[in-house]
């Protein structure tokens, strides 16, 4: 018994058909060193309350059904050792569904937004295939390596429901769908790459609405690093020359304008260049306040006035931009 630890599971309970509001129930149990979070969910159901509901199937980290949150941390219940989390968060574990606002019953959530967004990026190889092909459609090791690890996704939704951009912007495709878009866009058998790049470049729903918080990289139980794939989708827009000039693409490319002049980003110029003169009115109030507190100066952003100090050896940066730049807007 020495390796057992007393743990309290503060567990989210809700039945959308009968309950007005969700509530939390506390279950106490002795937990052993080899028990997984899924074992604890089973024990709630078997030892405490048979009505407790959760999704589970493969028990091998491959079906993606049992993703929940423990103390706010995305957790694939069948893969996660329970005492590891006790060590991290203390002896009260808060057991919640991946998204409390989508809860149907206890840990079971309505994942329809996840599947709609996944389907929206055409997550399959688009090509004309003969009905009765005589040869295989082979992939070389190099072609396969293009996918990086994006093919390992089990659609558990851990990243999707950890994404703060998605929490406040319903239109955002989210990290899992964007990972799938990357997976098929770099597949050499696929012919819908440009179409997918256009879908994922859409302002309001696509890659430019990612807030760069890295929550998805942290959440993924398969260590896929979805934000890395979002970065690659950004790059592909420029590499394949399909990027449209807009506030987001100019913002990315515009960093070089200041760097060529001083080595630093030009904070005033980047706003002006990205938004255009007409778009600047939105920022006048903020600019006045920043001027008043001395954060920017009256001459910031005016060409031919040196508001920003130059770095030493600026010529090196200018030369490197000249010889190492690979993309254009």
């Amino acid at each position, binding site marked *: 018994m020495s390796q057992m630890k007393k743990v309290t599971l503060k567990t989210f309970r809700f039945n959308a058909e009968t309950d007005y509001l969700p509530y939390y129930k506390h279950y106490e149990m002795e937990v052993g060193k080899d028990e997984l979070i899924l074992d604890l969910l089973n024990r709630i159901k078997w030892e405490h309350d048979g009505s407790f509901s959760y999704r589970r199937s493969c028990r091998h980290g491959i079906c993606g059904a049992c993703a929940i949150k423990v*103390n*706010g*941390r995305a957790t694939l219940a069948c893969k996660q050792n329970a005492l590891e989390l006790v060590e*991290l*968060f203390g002896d009260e574990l808060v057991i919640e569904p991946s998204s409390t606002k989508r809860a149907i019953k206890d840990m079971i959530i309505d994942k329809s937004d996840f599947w709609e967004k996944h389907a929206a990026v055409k997550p399959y190889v688009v090509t004309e295939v003969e009905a009765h092909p005589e040869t295989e459609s082979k992939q070389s090791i190099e072609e396969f390596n293009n996918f990086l690890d994006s093919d390992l996704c089990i659609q558990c939704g851990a990243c999707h429901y950890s994404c*703060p*951009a998605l929490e*406040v912007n319903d239109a*955002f495709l989210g990290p899992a769908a964007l990972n799938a878009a990357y997976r098929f866009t770099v597949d050499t058998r696929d012919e819908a790459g440009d179409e997918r790049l256009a879908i994922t470049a859409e*302002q309001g729903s696509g890659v*430019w*609405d990612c*807030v*760069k*918080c*890295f*929550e998805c990289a*942290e959440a993924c139980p398969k260590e896929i*690093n979805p934000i890395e794939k979002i*970065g690659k989708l*950004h*790059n592909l827009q*420029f590499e394949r020359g399909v990027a449209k000039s807009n506030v*987001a*693409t100019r*913002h*990315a*490319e515009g*960093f*070089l304008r*200041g*760097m060529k002049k001083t*080595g*630093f*980003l030009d*904070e005033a110029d980047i*706003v002006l260049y*990205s*938004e255009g003169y007409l778009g600047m009115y*939105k920022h006048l*109030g*903020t600019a006045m*306040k*920043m001027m008043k*507190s*001395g*954060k*920017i100066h009256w001459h910031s952003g005016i060409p031919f006035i040196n508001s*920003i*100090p130059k*770095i030493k*050896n600026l010529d*090196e*940066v200018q*030369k*490197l*931009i000249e010889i*190492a730049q*690979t993309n254009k*807007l």
Partner: protein
Amino acid sequence: MSEQLHYALFTGCTAKQSTPELLSSTLAVADKLGIKITILEEASCCGASHLQDFDEFLAHVLNARNICYAEKLGLTMITICNTCQLNSAMTKRALDKDPELKARVNEKLAEVGLEYKGTSEIKHFLYALIDEYGLDKIREKVTTPLSQFNIAPFYGCHNIRPSELHEEANGHENPYAPTSLDSLIDALEGNPVEYESKNKCCGFHVELQANHTSEVLAGNALVDAIDNNADMMVTPCPLCHLKMDTYQDSVGKVMGRDVELPVLHMPQMVALALGCSEKEIGLNFHVQKAKQLYAQAS
């Protein structure tokens, strides 16, 4: 102190432009603690994760160039911005694990007489203070205890995520339950505020292209801190500071309530407790009024 700590400081863009108070308070803190700082005056912008979206290879070349200058001095490079930390560390990681990429980058750097070797560590000043200088020694130097203040630590994404990139440099900080800023506040005798949003995103990076998202994320965090009785928020990242300090009026409109909370840079808070001068702390550069904190503290 047996051996004086000596760091190469990568200032980043904001400390040289819109947040001069970050640079002056960093230097003041280092001076008080007897830490030697050499500013990397050759260092350029890190790309802030946006240049990386445009041209990843070029971003690696330019970040590698910055690191070269720390390597030349044989020093650890310290950063005072989470996003500078992230992008510099990402380049270091990419080059150190991929000899082919490193060779391609060095081919470009050779044209300006530089070579990236991979010999310098890269660390945020917050973790240099905690892990290398030590909280106990900081505690001894406190002349103005912050005991009257409830201080909300706001960690900023790019120091804590992805954890696997940062764990060497940030003392294995857990991104779901970070403690470093809390323990620093405690060492300065302030009262750390416990609130859910401390490890969340401030929305800075989509300020231009997804303004509503940006305002709501900043608003959620500020309101959470205010509702948990914070007198001020403190962050190691000047981009979090810019979002949370500069936009409180517009954030308040989105949130439908008044949002007023001074947002300090981590070194400003330390400088306040160590008795640095009002000018060095530079609270006058804040958009949300913060000057009163100096008078209240002393």
